[in-house]
């Protein structure tokens, strides 16, 4: 567990204290926090206190924040970022090897060559599908990992694997672990924010931002996909200012007194902290979510003025604004099974790309032009890829691809990752990762490493057990993709 000492003031903090007016209420809370920080480290005799005060990482971090663009359903890597000429050759013919179907006795074994063209882009000359023209434009800032695999069979399990390192529900997610390990760089916004799609929650719903058995203070906060994005931000006129400030002070006295007779109740502590945060968010969240402060050029860049990309663009832009203000971990979701192209892949995959390609690329570009990309890790990918063979062989318009967790692609940008780089490879058909494979545990070890955390040392004591994100698995830091 990293110790409770603060970083020197970071550029991000400087930015944040400079950009918005710190009201009296906010000041009180910040002072309160600073006082907390100034407390000498106490011996570990009494109950641990869990909060979002800044913690010292294990080593110098590259990344301070992460934005996960989670493509729920499993984007078809061989149609997007992992071209397979062998499949094009064999299109319509029987698959020559063995397929690891989601269910062995089922599905067809007819090869489906990618219906889309690939071309080399950027100085790095990485192959990108015509479905991702905007991503192609920032490919030199992107590290494409073509050898991801979780080897578990279905959406929920693979989502759990990538989020929590385990395949069953109830465990803490990556975002919770990072906030637990590092605390928050903002005390005026939640450290961990989830931005779900207006249509529906992803498969596994709220578990994507669950704290599992970590204390509730590390839970993600949902920002709604439509107005009011955060409800109840405005106090009524008569409470604004001093009356509510005094109310919060009195409330904290009541709650502290209550807690003092119930030491160790982490939920009670978390709620006290949450009132503190709520007080702050009244001004800070409003400011952070106010996209009218952005120029038209920026909005256009994110596709906010086109129907297909308006929502996703807005949420990517919100992600950037949150990161800029010190939020540690932001998840931007697509709707339920958005990329689960079992059928009609010829129409559903282009539609999915259309919604996400431009905003995702804009996010990378925008972070870079603001000097934030170096310290912000952007992740793009889903819980699986697709199979090289046809599913639902009912005519070209209806064909799709089944699940494949044995080899799939994710990309990363910034936060200490190499740009214009390809890591790992799947076999000639895109079925199995075979070269420089990256498991969920390697993925976790690497991401935590970028945050300055040692995945083996980041543990939480529970029931006399030291539990970690790796859960006893060997997680290799994939040094080859680090700058």
């Amino acid at each position, binding site marked *: 567990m990293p110790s409770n000492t603060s970083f020197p003031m970071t550029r991000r903090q400087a930015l944040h204290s400079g950009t918005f007016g710190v009201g009296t209420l906010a000041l009180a809370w910040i002072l309160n926090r600073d006082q907390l920080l100034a407390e000498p480290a106490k011996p570990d005799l009494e109950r641990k206190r869990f909060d979002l005060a800044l913690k010292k990482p294990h080593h110098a971090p590259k990344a301070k924040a992460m934005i996960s663009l989670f493509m729920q359903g499993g984007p078809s890597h061989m149609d997007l970022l992992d071209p397979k000429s062998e499949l094009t050759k064999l299109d319509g013919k029987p698959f020559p090897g063995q397929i*690891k179907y*989601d*269910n*062995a*006795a*089922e*599905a067809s074994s007819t090869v489906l060559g990618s219906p889309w063209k690939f071309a080399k882009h950027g100085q790095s000359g990485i192959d990108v599908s015509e479905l991702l023209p905007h991503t192609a434009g920032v490919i030199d800032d992107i590290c494409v990992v073509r050898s991801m*695999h979780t*080897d578990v*069979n279905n959406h929920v399990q693979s989502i759990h694997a990538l989020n929590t390192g385990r395949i*069953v529900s109830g465990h803490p997610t990556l975002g919770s672990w990072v906030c637990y390990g590092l605390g928050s760089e903002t005390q005026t916004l*939640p450290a961990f924010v989830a931005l779900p799609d207006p249509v529906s929650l992803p498969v596994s*719903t709220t578990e994507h931002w669950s704290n599992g058995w970590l204390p*509730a203070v590390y*839970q993600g*906060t*949902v920002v709604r996909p439509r*107005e*009011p994005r955060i*409800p*109840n*931000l405005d106090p009524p*006129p*008569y*409470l604004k200012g*001093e*009356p*509510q400030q*005094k*109310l919060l002070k*009195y*409330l904290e006295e*009541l*709650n502290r*007194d*209550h807690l003092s*007779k*119930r*030491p160790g*109740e982490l*939920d*009670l502590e978390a*709620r*006290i902290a*949450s*009132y503190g*945060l*709520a*007080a702050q*968010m*009244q001004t800070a969240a409003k400011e952070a979510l106010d996209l009218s402060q952005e120029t038209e050029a920026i909005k256009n860049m994110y596709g906010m003025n086109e129907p297909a990309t308006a929502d996703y663009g807005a949420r990517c832009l919100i992600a950037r604004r949150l990161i800029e203000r010190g939020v540690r971990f932001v998840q931007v979701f697509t709707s339920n099974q958005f990329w689960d192209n079992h059928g009609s892949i010829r129409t559903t995959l282009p539609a999915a790309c259309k919604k996400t390609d431009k905003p995702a690329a804009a996010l990378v570009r925008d972070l870079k032009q603001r000097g934030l990309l170096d310290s912000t890790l952007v992740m793009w990918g889903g819980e699986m890829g697709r199979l090289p063979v046809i599913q*639902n062989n*009912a005519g070209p318009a209806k064909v799709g691809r089944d699940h494949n967790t*044995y080899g799939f692609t994710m990309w990363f940008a910034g936060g200490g990752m190499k740009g214009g780089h390809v890591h790992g490879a799947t076999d000639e058909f895109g079925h*199995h990762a075979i070269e420089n*494979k990256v*498991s969920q545990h390697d993925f976790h070890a690497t991401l935590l490493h970028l945050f300055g955390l040692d995945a083996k040392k980041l543990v939480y004591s*529970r*029931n*006399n057990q030291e539990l970690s994100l790796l859960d006893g698995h060997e997680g290799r830091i994939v040094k080859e993709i680090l700058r």
Partner: protein
Amino acid sequence: MHFLTRLALSVMIPLAVVSTAIADDSPQFNTHIRPLFKAYCTECHGESEKPKGGLDLRLRRFVLKGGKGGPSLVVGKPDESLLIEKIRSGEMPPGKKKLTPAEVDLLSKWIATGAKVETDEPATLATGFQIAPEDRQFWAFQPIRRLAVPKVEDHVRTPIDAFLAVKLHDKQMRFSAEADRVTIIRRLTFDLIGLPPTTAEIDAFVADQDSQAYEKLVDRLLASPRYGERWARHWLDVAGYADSEGGSPEDPLRANAWKYRDYVIRAMNKDKPFDQFIREQLAGDELAATPWNLTDPETVEKLTATGFLRMAPDGSGAPGADQKLARNAVVTDTVKIVSSAFLGITVGCAQCHNHRYDPVPQTDFYRLRAFLEPGYDPAAWKPPAARQLSLYTEADRKKAAEIETEAAKIDKDRLAKQQTFIDQTFDKEVAKLPEALREPAKLARKTPEAKRNAEQKKLMQEHPSLNVSAGSLYLYDSKAAAELKKLVEQATEVRKKKPVEEFVRVLTDTPGKLPPTHLHHRGDPDQPKQVVAPGGLTVLDDVLPLPNPQAVPGGSSGRRLALAKWLTDPKHPLTARVIVNRIWMEHFGRGLVGTPGDFGRLGERPTHPELLDWLASEFVSTGWSLKQLHRLILTSVAYRQSSARNAKTDTDPDDRLLGRYPLRRLDAEAVRDASLAVSGKLNLEQFGPPVPVMEDDAGMAVIGKANRDGAGYKLGDESLPTGQESRRSIYVQVRRSKPLVVLDVFDWATIEPNCEARKSSTATPQSLLLLNNEFTLAQAAHFADRVRKEAGTDPRKQVTLAWRLAYGTEPQSIEADKAIAFVASQTNIFESAAPPPPPMKNAAAPTKVKGKGPIEPPPPPPTAAERALTVYCQALLISNRFLYVD
């Protein structure tokens, strides 16, 4: 060292004894080795149609025989065994998932110690998915075993305590001391009726000298009509209750769903035996005597109960829905609801393929589905609107027809009179024209509008008063119009005498029709495969086979009745355990099985299996009485103990052993209902159509009756009759797309399609809501009003009463002093502040609305002191002490 010694010894065991069961500690095939093979190997080597490489690892003798590469092992010599070689070299299993070193050691040890199996193996084994004996032996599929209550040296009140104490003692722990009386009445009252105790109730209980005071309290609360409102809600989570259809963005309302809600509340209140409750929900229509006598309340009750099977989200009524997919989704979700509610097994996972962890073949999903398809026939689909069963009787219908005739007569008279009035008026208007125009005008009027010539049109335009019609008559002749209006009212009054036509939402078979249920390849309704007959879980076929359904009088297939009887058979290993576990979960915050909807391999194992079985057995033998079960649990030492933590209880951080009572947050309904109760506004009206929910100007779901045009402009009043906005949360409309924000933020049930267990989060949106939401602010103001009314103007009396109402105890004097100081300082702030601008409040806000009576003058703005007391009351209502129960 120890291992090596044993290894050396066991190698010497002669092979002849290998296949007989021996109680030694060497690894055994079924117990230790087969699960390893199942996890890593048998998907290819045994469960596929053709085992790869000819190798089948499902039986020991198949392992010995080996595949194309020869025998897979040399008994006694792991290092010479092909199996070990393949594993150690990394060749097998292919892929990332490898055996751990410990597992390889276990396998080697098994070979070294003679590759033993504990029982004789079956002579034959069919290909494909097989349920192995070990799978059958999984705890959840075992018959319920009622063990003797253990004898323990500890303070115990009920057998429950004895079972719990054994495990506590194993860890050198004991129960905590009994909680004090104020704590216990607050805990018990919230638990049983979802509301806080009143101050009078607290005083009476604290003063009760009777040794049975606690038991009396339990009985009083169980007898309260509020009990059913609380516990029905728990069951509605499991049923996935909603007042809207879902399944499409329009999310249309689902009329009359509330009758099922009321059925559940009544069932809980009268302690309907739970087995009967289950049978009615699954097959009430098949239980009711035929032909249905719709004037018989019992028949109607049974029919209403089948509303349970109509709870799944249903997009099949949405315009443009893909009917095949939409219908399939409804039936699939209903199978999921039924299986998770009663079986606690994730049968839903077998929709597309054999269950990966539990012994549930894909066919099981379709076996269950076959029970439903005579009622949910995708080929003869009843759209949502057609599922209403009218409760009109023949007599009602006749009466209604008679009344209609009477009303129609009035209508006819009125139309005739109307024509006369119009003609008279026209004549008067014509008379005003110059003589020359009169005849042409009469002719023009007689000519239908479309056939008038240009001259006639011009005439009528130039003299608009000639265009008298039914709609404009009142402009000419108000007396005539009033007379006609009276007749309209008269007809309406007559029609009101018709018997009210009530409907219930039911699921019934199409009599005499048995649609075949097909297994869907990969769950795809476009790829139907073999026909599957109705059946229970295959894994239980030996323990408790499901008898063939028999058609019931009236022609219903009897399938659902057969399912219901099977589920409620006292020998069913799952149903009673699942129900008892849910009840336990609601009382203690966590089930004895931590995963109430998954008793399978991926679920948690029971913390106290013997206790779970004892309770299940007791529940069944006392006639499936929930109230009896509550009594049993609530009178235990475990339930009555304090929630305080100490060093000892901290060794069990999740409180699985129950060395203390867990501190718990109020759930969504209790947060809202308790605020209303304390503010004095709670309206206890029972039953009936749900209190409507609409979106306010900010897009938040609030209570109110939407009255807006397509662009969102308010067309008129959106208020409800006074008091409706303050009814208990169970009566608030459950609109899937518009969950009431106060409930939603506090982790209301997510019904996709149903809710196994609620979460209890502390997310910041809750704090924002409690600080700023209209609901909290309004309740704080009502609370302050109540306090002023009951305590008068003395500040100490005010803060003390408010404290008592919110927390149930007197404040200590220092607490009261602080509260007085707080109110005083708030008063100062409000006094010195400039008067706030007049409220520009959103008129749609539900708490602002008034009744439909004469317009009331706006109340005078609150004084500084009144405001200050409101803020203090808000602090109490949003404090942890109010939101949590010890």
